[in-house]
């Protein structure tokens, strides 16, 4: 690397100095990930739009407001129950764009292929991407492929980028939630993460779980057709519902209070999480969204969501409060309270 970084010059409240190298936790969607963005990328890029840290950036171009997003996919295994890396790559970016209230229009796909990867597998992934794009109503218009030496990749890594137009007058963003808002989740949580774990090498526990990977732009369209009083949307992927709620709580400077008993956690996810010592609140989802909406509009929104195939399990899980801004608190099953913090790195299975 010729471009030498000035490690001492970083302006950051909590420096990364205790990890001089990238560790896996920097990709876990927790505190380490956000520190990397805030302390390394933001100062280097100096972009006011990036600083909003939405699922997608909203920028103005030619009089239109565009929601623009990019996402990289390094999932292992490449094929898992209910889908593959191709479905994820398309839907991930579709959903990031949809979280600004925009309908995704065009998308790019970059492939980093490992020498030796079976072409047949790549074809299956490409077929899935095409089908997912058609289902979401988005067009793949440009792409790139590179090949790396055997052993330097896990078959294929995919990066997708895309954009859509934000309807005029819409101001949905992680910083727009207000005290009194109701928090709605569109359905069962923790499904994707546990479906992947259930087939990961050395951990095959045969849970009857398939990924919930799906394009959410149709659901968002149906929601916006009913009410424009949606303040914030987030698809709780990596880091799960807990991380997404924390991001909104911090960006909007509201408190969030959730009721643990109201969380829709399917039996198989709960069982697998119990065995592994994981908390479903931190497990990834790929076809679910969280909505912060004004209380008066919550019932209408719920009705609209439940009428859509991807929102049938929509339910209220909590509310935004003026108390404890930036903090997420859960009412426990037996009536106590606990803080639902952002996790530091990756969620680690407990020893016993």
């Amino acid at each position, binding site marked *: 690397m010729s471009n030498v970084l000035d490690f001492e010059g970083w302006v950051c409240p909590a420096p990364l100095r205790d990890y001089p190298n990238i560790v896996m936790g920097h990709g876990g969607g927790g505190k380490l990930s956000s520190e990397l963005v805030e302390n390394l990328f933001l100062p280097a890029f100096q972009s006011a739009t990036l600083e909003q840290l939405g699922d997608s950036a909203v920028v103005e171009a030619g009089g239109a407001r565009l929601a623009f997003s990019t996402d990289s996919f390094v999932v292992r295994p490449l094929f898992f129950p209910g889908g593959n890396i191709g479905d994820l790559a398309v839907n991930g970016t579709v959903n990031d764009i949809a979280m600004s209230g925009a309908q995704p229009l065009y998308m790019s796909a970059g492939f980093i292929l490992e020498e030796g990867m079976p072409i047949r597998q790549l074809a299956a992934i490409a077929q899935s991407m095409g089908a997912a794009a058609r289902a979401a109503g988005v067009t793949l218009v440009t792409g790139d492929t590179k090949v790396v030496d055997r052993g330097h990749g896990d078959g294929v890594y995919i990066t997708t980028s895309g954009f859509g137009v934000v309807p005029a007058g819409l101001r949905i963003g992680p910083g727009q939630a207000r005290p009194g808002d109701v928090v709605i989740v569109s359905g069962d949580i923790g499904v994707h993460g546990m479906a992947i774990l259930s087939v990961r090498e050395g951990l095959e526990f045969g849970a009857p779980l398939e990924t919930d990977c799906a394009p959410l732009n149709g659901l968002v369209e149906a929601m916006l057709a009913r009410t424009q009083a949606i303040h914030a949307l987030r698809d709780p992927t990596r880091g799960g519902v807990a991380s997404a709620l924390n991001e909104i709580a911090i960006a909007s400077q509201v408190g969030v209070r959730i009721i643990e008993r109201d969380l829709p956690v399917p039996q198989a996810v709960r069982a697998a999480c119990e065995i592994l010592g994981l908390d479903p609140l931190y497990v990834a989802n790929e076809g679910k969204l969280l909505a912060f909406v004004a209380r008066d509009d919550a019932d209408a929104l719920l009705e609209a969501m439940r009428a859509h195939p991807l929102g049938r399990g929509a339910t209220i899980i909590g509310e935004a409060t003026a108390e404890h801004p930036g903090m997420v608190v859960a009412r426990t099953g037996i009536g*106590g309270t606990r803080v639902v913090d952002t996790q530091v790195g990756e969620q680690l299975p407990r020893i016993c």
Partner: protein
Amino acid sequence: MKYLDEFRDPELAGRLFDDIRRITTRPWAIMEVCGGQTHSIIRNGIDQLLPDQIELIHGPGCPVCVTPLELIDKALAIAARPDVTFCSFGDMLRVPGSSQDLFKIKSEGGDIRIVYSPLDAVKIAQQRPERQVVFFGIGFETTAPANAMAILQAERLGLTNFSMLVSHVLVPPAISAIMESPVSRVQGFLAAGHVCSVMGTHQYGPLVARYHVPIVVTGFEPLDVLEGIRRTVAQLEAGEARLDNAYARAVSAPGNLPAQKVLAEVFEVTDRTWRGIGMIPQSGWRLSARFRPFDAEDRFNVGHIRTEESSLCRSGEVLQGLIKPNQCPAFGKECTPRMPLGATMVSSEGACAAYYQYGRFVHVDA
């Protein structure tokens, strides 16, 4: 979920809280021995709902937390070797040694794997005969049988590339040490249910007699914990000290005899240093003479590594129940799960991490 929801029922929990409130007339200090119980107490907010007179003291029962810094440094030295594949349970990875953790070693090229059973490590050793496969065998009596089985399996398979870094610790000597301590305030114990499901309950009778202290074998779900507390308070209020089993669905008096047989074969009792507490005589297990060839400490010659603990971190006092995590001056400041000073802030079973994760808000308010 069958056998879980029944033990999280809010109505029954409410009734138990009422019962405990009704029978409590004086202040009592009760120690839950196991980190899993601490986790459950804080995660469910049980401590906030108990009457003020009942103080729960968090015991030394988090296996990750009591593993001495020195042993972590030994693990790091072994894991950094290019010929070693180092296998560990997940939550050991973030525990800081004196200068780094296993994640950092991994980022520098160390071959470090999270496994879910020590037998997975044996499997890796079988598949990769050119690699030295080391399993980090820590924990209480609960995790020990699986580790013992892994050693037996490795012996049966004639594996010469498998070894274990062993630092098992035992609950009864820790209870003795706490009761012998002149500063201990503990008046009753919730004994660790899972440990007793392996070892049975017979080791606890003599402790009850010697220290005249109620010991109630207790489970981990909210109702289990509450029932354990209720029975302990009932004894204390009546001036009694008995061994009681509030976790009979998992624990029998003799325990798991086949597991005990394997343990007796593979391990022998030894003195152990507990992180933050110090040396407790006869409080751990090491590999017995026959299995010493599987001892990673000998194989990789790391016996000479000596490490001092951080002076800021007061996890020792937390582990002995002398202070609450949020009474440590470093809590939430110099020491957070992000930059932990001690293992109690790292493991999900650690008292400091449990406070930080779940209880911080409430205690900030108080």
